[in-house]
């Protein structure tokens, strides 16, 4: 099996604070891997370092054999890594459909002159991209909201929109940062089914940060547990979640959902 991501001895510092401490991990093609850990464990910082938003102090990050360190986010996105954000970052004043179009034409598919002259070929290209974007919306079950202003959607739908937008970037590796935050049990179950379907149909490799164990357990092949920036445990969900040290660091302080 092909190794998609190989992180070794990654260390990230903010001033005097070590946010990630000597963390190594890897992910193979088609895997669904979870990253868990208490708040402030450095999970989102880890994602940020993969997407080029944060520069590590030391260590290496290799994606399909190429180093990601020093690359800017747009470049990394074009290499096939896409993500959603913990604190939703949609384009609030654009329509839902336009939101999903952005990754499809982040590198415009026609030149400046066809754009300025409003040529038929450019219009046709726009049409094609809208159709493709719509297919992602429909896959996430939010096709009917295509013309809504994205900022006016309810919270849960905004999270779905983020996933649709991330998929439209044609990723190989998808990073999901707490997609179930603020969702109730029914919505969580729905989300699990949705993610299963997407993972299968789009042949994706997925990395998931989540606190809801009923989202983590049915989805993830393997888990990494971070605590205070360092790796605490790694393994299959069943083993990891029953590990007394993990329970103490993480689940102990957090009442498990019914």
């Amino acid at each position: 099996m092909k190794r998609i991501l190989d992180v070794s001895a990654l260390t990230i510092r903010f001033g005097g604070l070590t946010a990630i401490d000597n963390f190594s991990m890897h992910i193979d093609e088609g895997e669904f891997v979870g990253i868990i850990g208490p708040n402030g464990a450095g999970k989102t910082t880890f994602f940020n370092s993969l997407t080029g938003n944060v520069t590590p102090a030391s260590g290496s990050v290799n994606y399909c054999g190429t180093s990601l360190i020093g690359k800017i986010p747009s470049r990394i996105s074009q290499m096939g890594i896409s993500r959603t954000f913990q604190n939703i970052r949609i384009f609030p004043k654009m329509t839902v459909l336009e939101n999903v179009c952005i990754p499809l034409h982040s590198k415009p598919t026609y030149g400046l002159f066809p754009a300025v002259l409003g040529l038929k070929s450019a219009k046709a290209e726009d049409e094609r991209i809208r159709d493709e974007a719509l297919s992602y919306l429909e896959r996430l079950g939010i096709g009917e909201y295509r013309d809504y202003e994205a900022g006016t959607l309810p919270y849960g739908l905004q999270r779905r929109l983020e996933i649709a937008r991330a998929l439209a970037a044609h990723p190989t590796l998808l990073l999901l940062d707490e997609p179930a935050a603020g969702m109730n049990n029914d919505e969580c179950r729905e989300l699990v089914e949705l993610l299963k379907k997407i993972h299968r149909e789009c042949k994706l490799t997925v990395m998931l940060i989540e606190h809801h164990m009923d989202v983590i357990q049915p989805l993830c092949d393997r888990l990494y547990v971070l605590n205070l920036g360092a790796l605490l445990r790694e393994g299959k969900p069943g083993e990891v979640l029953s590990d007394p040290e993990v329970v103490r660091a993480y689940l102990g302080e957090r009442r498990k959902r019914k």
Partner: protein
Amino acid sequence: MIQILQQLVTSVSVGGLYALLAVGYALIYSVFDFTKLAFGGIMMVSAFAGYFATKLGVPTAAAMLVASAAGVLISVAVELLAYRPMRKRNANRLFLMISAMGVNIFITNLFLCLFGANLRALPTGFSSNTIALGPLRIGVVDLLSLIVSVVALVLLTFFLYRTRAGVTVRASALDMSTAGLMGIDVNRVSLIVFAISGITAAIAGMFFGMKYNVYPAMGSISNKAFIASVIGGLGSLKGAVIGGFLLGILEIMVTAYISATYRDLVSFAVMMIVLIFLPNGLFGMGDQNKL
């Protein structure tokens, strides 16, 4: 040699005033994350208040207090009327900047229409006096402004690092929403910060008024202070002070040895060069951990 020393003394005193203004920028930027472009106007209004007070026979030291009161008043009024309602609505930073610019344009031109563009000398009685220090002749105003700005900066540092209110300001600068969650009254912090920036603007305005003149367009001096805070690194107090002194020295040297007409050009050029090689200024923080 003596001539260079003489220029250096002048430039350090101008630098002190730049530093004072730049600290105002840095303070507001660090807490509210936006560049308040209205400093010039506030500085000018305070200088006018000081000017009128002096005209009425108030002694200079008391006129300084009048100017500071005016600075605090207008700075806080602008915060309450313009910025706070916008922040409540989570307005775009761009909009806040445009609004601040609007305040500046409004105040400056209102005074221009009301009082005309003419220069008014602040009648202190000692503006042209000098003190001989060996072969050097130091202007009383220069000396005074240097002393006052250094004292003000020391007091400000003391306030920020040694008092409870100062700690709340620093906490808000690190993370406003968390500070709010921890029970810090963010609105009070904003009043403190805007009041302080009003005082620094007023002190600088008074001394610029004594050194040069009081006139409606004098606020454009604050652009220099902004350059100083950019050179030092936006949001860094230490950087603002050092940037202020550096810029003061640079400007006086350019004026003395090249030409006054190129002074502004050189200042902007230096800022561009700093931005190219030190994108976050000398002491600024990157914003990567704000994500």
